[in-house]
């Protein structure tokens, strides 16, 4: 039954805008939630499956946003020694691909550098990395406009030469673009996790010496996971830039990383659907609360909801619910287990 759950969820998300009707406010909330959820899914690959907490995950998101924006806007900067780099604007779709590659490369760098030192050291390296990148974005004004923000970022244009092009300007188009990218990311993660690579990640998380002793290459496995995770975060950042059409160094806010961690932990880390469930709940909670309370009160409710979820279901919503369902169908299990003994 649970194998059809992702498909049912996907079908629900496909028809959701039709059911909502023209409601720009809600659609906007859904798009931003979707983008953050992709970020949470990518974070889950590291936090949930390898057990490494990246508290600088927003760096990859922000790098994706800036690379994509700058690729599609073009720039003209001096990099010292009298050298100038001039870049003419390229299509936004190319920016999206470059954003993925650039963020993935940064993931490789961080992975190689920091997986020699795990745990708390990894957390510190990732936080520092995010802060350094934020300061660069803030202070390299010639390239990034600093606090003045990069504006007029073009919307993504899709299409093939000869078949026609579509510029995704409306909210509805962007919603489906985010949904498509999210589905793609889900599929890639599901495939990874269900493969030998996924088992290698789990083995390293559960018992590293034993994993090494059965021939699992720790550095390689963790680096590949970091690259894929960072690339997905970069893709999410690119979607963000081309949807909002304006970005400033605030995309590197530490609070956004914390939001993603909350989504993953509340939904259930190390599960495929966990970050999506967590993302939808914590992304849409402000929408539900806005009519009834002030923003400050919303944050309190936000915290309370997290505490209640983790109090009732310490491993998160998805493992908690599947545990409940499992217990309900439990009577079949002892019968199955008893049979070999009966045969003896």
């Amino acid at each position: 039954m649970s194998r059809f759950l992702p498909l049912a969820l996907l079908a629900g998300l496909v028809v959701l805008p039709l059911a909502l009707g023209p409601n720009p406010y809600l659609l906007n909330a859904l798009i931003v939630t979707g983008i953050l959820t992709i970020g949470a899914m990518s974070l889950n690959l590291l936090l949930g499956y390898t057990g490494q907490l990246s508290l600088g995950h927003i760096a990859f998101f922000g790098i994706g946003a800036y690379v994509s924006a700058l690729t599609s806007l073009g720039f003209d900067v001096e990099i010292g020694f009298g050298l100038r780099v001039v870049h003419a604007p390229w299509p936004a779709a190319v920016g999206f691909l470059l954003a993925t590659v650039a963020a993935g490369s940064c993931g490789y760098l961080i992975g190689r550098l920091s997986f020699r030192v795990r745990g708390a050291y990894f957390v510190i390296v990732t936080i520092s990395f995010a802060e350094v990148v934020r300061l660069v974005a803030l202070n390299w004004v010639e390239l990034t406009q600093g606090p003045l923000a990069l504006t007029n970022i073009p919307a993504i244009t899709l299409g093939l030469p000869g078949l026609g092009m579509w510029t995704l300007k409306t909210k509805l188009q962007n919603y489906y673009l985010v949904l498509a990218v999210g589905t793609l990311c889900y599929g890639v993660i599901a495939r990874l996790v269900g493969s030998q690579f996924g088992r290698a990640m789990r083995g390293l998380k559960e018992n590293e010496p034993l994993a090494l002793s059965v021939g699992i290459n720790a550095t390689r496995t963790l680096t590949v996971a970091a690259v894929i995770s960072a690339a997905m975060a970069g893709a999410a950042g690119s979607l963000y830039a081309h949807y909002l059409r304006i970005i400033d160094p605030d995309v590197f806010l530490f609070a956004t990383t914390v939001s993603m961690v909350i989504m993953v932990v509340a939904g259930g880390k190390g599960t495929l659907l966990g970050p999506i469930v967590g993302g939808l709940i914590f992304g849409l909670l402000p929408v539900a609360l806005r009519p009834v309370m002030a923003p400050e009160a919303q944050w309190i409710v936000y915290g309370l909801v997290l505490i209640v979820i983790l109090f009732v279901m310490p491993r998160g919503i998805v493992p908690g619910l599947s545990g409940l369902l499992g217990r309900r169908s439990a009577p079949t299990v002892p019968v199955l287990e008893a049979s070999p003994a009966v045969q003896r």
Partner: protein
Amino acid sequence: MSAILSVEHVGVRFGGLVAIADLHFDVQDGEIVSLIGPNGAGKTTAFNVMTGFLKPSQGAVRFRGTCLDGLAPHAITRLGLARTFQRTSVFPDDTVLDNVMIGLHRRGAPMSRTSFRDALLGRSGAGERALRDRAEALLDWVGIADRAREKAGALAYGEQRLVGVALALATDPTMLLLDEPVSGMNASETRVFVRLIEQIRGRGITILLVEHDMPMVMEVSDRIVVLNYGRLIAEGPPDRIRADPVVIEAYLGQGSAARQAAAAVLEAADA
């Protein structure tokens, strides 16, 4: 017969402490060799050196002619030298079957051949099923097939040891290092394990064993290497070790636990 594993004048020092001093011995292809000695004699340290978890301060280990110096643990496993662990021998949060499938790490494709649609549906592809069959066969072989669906961390110690052995065998080794495999097992489980060790040898796998259970060591070993204070003090077939005055003194010269072990040695000699 040729030496499959050569420990060549290996020494390990932790600061001023000498854990192993100039350890030198060979294991021949197809043998069952035991490494024994009182607690703290350096047996597990020797295992850690052979499997790349520790770098020796001096000397080298050769496996099938390859010098293992500087090789990472996973690379040594890929050469065909597998090991089990004393205490934490399983991946506790996974099922027994998944444990062995993790152990079959090198058999699968890097990305599963599961199609994109199957992945979205949570189904597994043909490669995945073949892997599962292999894992089930291995579990059946070590005798814990009926535990396949249970969480490995929930099993009894003795059963976890068997999962550990299945995991090591999953890497398709030519030599297996067993670190105290029967500790925590009762007498009948130990007897079953002795048979399993002989079956493993029957598959052409050379075995080096660290164990405190003296009757079991005397029963299965072709040859015994005795360590004390990081030094090799005796080497030879069980009969000779049993009667070796140096070995008996090494055990008697220690605390009460050592006395018991020595008594066990003598008891096994009578049996």
